């Protein structure tokens, strides 16, 4: 069905169509609309699911862990401080190899109190073992959420997936949305190591030195394997439903001398900047980074690179800028912009390209040279 919807509504609708047996969630701006909408689906009978309105985000993730290990597809959504409050259990979900899907509506962290878009919340969960995808449109929020369940539940992966969407600029914008009938795109949930609820027993999770190390390696091995699984799932989605995705979304990159790398809505708005620059004769292209974990291989050889970071590692640099540097050996022009929802227009992005100084870092609107 074709309609228009907000990013939040798109995520909730994808959850309805993925039919999780348990949804446990706690509201937080700007994510609240997701869990409200899911609650409405459950109330109206459009989604048959146990909706658990927990008392905190820590409990939301804990409830998902319990349900998931008992053999039930689960979903939760959060943002910002909510995500950090559940941090301990975010690690646990990955360590216990549970294919939980969570939407994280990216929002800045206080103080100062700020409810607008920033990627620091997701970056702070970087080393938990979750796969992370960042989306740039309402349609993609729907599609990526649906695919997230299939990727997470694949037996070659069995890791939780976080679907990230920018607070307000995507969560609250209305754009066109085409929903699908997933049919057998999503197979029945099957967890090979599910507990047997008919035969309850207790066991201690204490794990010795060598075994623990092997479990960590196993997470990394599955994360590496997830690259191929993600490609498979995205290819099957394209064949069935006609919309294709990859680890990055490239725009006019073929003959580009300079490439802009950004995530989320800034990555989409960058395409408008590219058209503007091309009309001035600048051979520019953009590469919207979709998968943050696993971080994709990037082919940037011989180009200038401008990275726009909506998150920062204090004392070290832009998170994506450093990732690009480590992956490719290229010294990008590192632009720190859009923190706390700071407005960044396509004209600003075009300026970043025009004024680029590879190897340097610039905090947009704060200082020209840092």
């Amino acid at each position, binding site marked *: 069905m074709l309609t228009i919807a907000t990013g939040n509504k798109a995520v909730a609708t994808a959850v309805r169509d993925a039919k999780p047996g348990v949804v446990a969630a706690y509201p937080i701006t700007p994510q609240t609309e997701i869990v409200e909408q899911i609650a409405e689906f459950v109330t109206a009978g459009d989604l048959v699911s146990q909706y658990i309105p927990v008392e905190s985000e820590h409990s939301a993730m804990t409830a998902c862990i319990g349900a998931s290990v008992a053999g039930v597809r689960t979903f939760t959504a959060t943002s910002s401080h909510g995500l950090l409050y559940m941090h301990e259990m975010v690690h646990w979900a990955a360590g216990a190899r549970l294919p939980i899907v969570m939407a994280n509506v990216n929002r800045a962290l206080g103080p100062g109190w700020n409810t607008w878009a920033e990627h620091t919340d997701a970056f702070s969960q970087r080393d938990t073992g979750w796969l992370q995808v960042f989306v740039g449109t309402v349609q993609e929020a729907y599609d990526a959420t649906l695919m997230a369940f299939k990727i997470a539940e694949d037996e070659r992966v069995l890791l939780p997936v976080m679907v990230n969407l920018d607070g307000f600029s995507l969560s609250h914008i*209305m754009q*066109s949305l085409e929903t699908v009938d997933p049919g057998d795109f999503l197979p029945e949930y099957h967890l090979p190591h599910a507990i047997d609820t008919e035969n309850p027993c207790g066991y201690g999770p204490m794990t010795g030195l060598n075994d623990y190390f092997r479990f960590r390696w196993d997470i990394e091995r599955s994360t590496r394997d997830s690259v191929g699984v993600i490609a498979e799932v995205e290819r099957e989605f394209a064949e069935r439903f006609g919309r294709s995705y990859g680890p990055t979304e490239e725009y006019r990159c073929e003959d580009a001398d300079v490439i802009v790398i950004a995530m989320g809505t800034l990555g989409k708005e960058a395409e408008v900047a590219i058209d503007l620059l091309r009309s001035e004769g600048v051979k520019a292209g953009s590469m919207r980074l979709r998968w943050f974990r696993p971080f994709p291989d990037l082919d940037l050889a011989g180009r200038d690179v401008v990275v726009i970071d909506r998150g920062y590692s204090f004392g070290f640099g832009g998170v994506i800028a450093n990732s690009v540097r480590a992956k490719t050996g290229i010294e990008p022009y590192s632009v720190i912009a859009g923190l706390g929802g700071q407005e960044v227009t396509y004209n600003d992005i075009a300026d970043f390209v025009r004024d680029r100084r590879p190897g340097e870092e610039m905090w947009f609107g704060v200082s020209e040279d840092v």
Partner: protein
Amino acid sequence: MYEVRIHSRGGQGGVTAARLLALAAFRDGKYATACPFYGAERRGAPVVSFVRIDDEPIKIYSQIHEPDLVVVLDTSIMDVVDVLQGLKGDGTVLLNSAHTLEGCAATCLHVDLTGIALATDLVIAGSPILNTPVLGALAKMGVVTLPSVQQAIREMFTDERNVRAAGAAYEELKI
């Protein structure tokens, strides 16, 4: 691309008006985005919402700085907000008012949406509903078509008074 900026106060329905306008444009077969700018949400505070309408998919997420049309649902805001800021030279202002704006440099249209809401008994918790009547005025201006406005309203609301109020605004607005 046609860009609309809607000024209102929190609780007056400016955000919903933007969503209705985008939905109506979508039903007209156009691409549309509606994007509110949320401040610290509170009733009565000035709120601004943005709508973009185009024949091509829209990739812009930032705010509208040079609108083709400015809609003012509450003219008391004009004491504290420069609603004409950035308005294009050939742009238009649509006021919820029984009177025009004297000395306005831009094309200024006005229609008494509050009066229409009261006459249609479209009042919730003591506040007249402005977001559905204003869609009728926008249809009269040709931003969207009246059938799409009626369809959009019916998709979001069940109370037919909303459709009647939009029809009344369509009739009353003088171009």
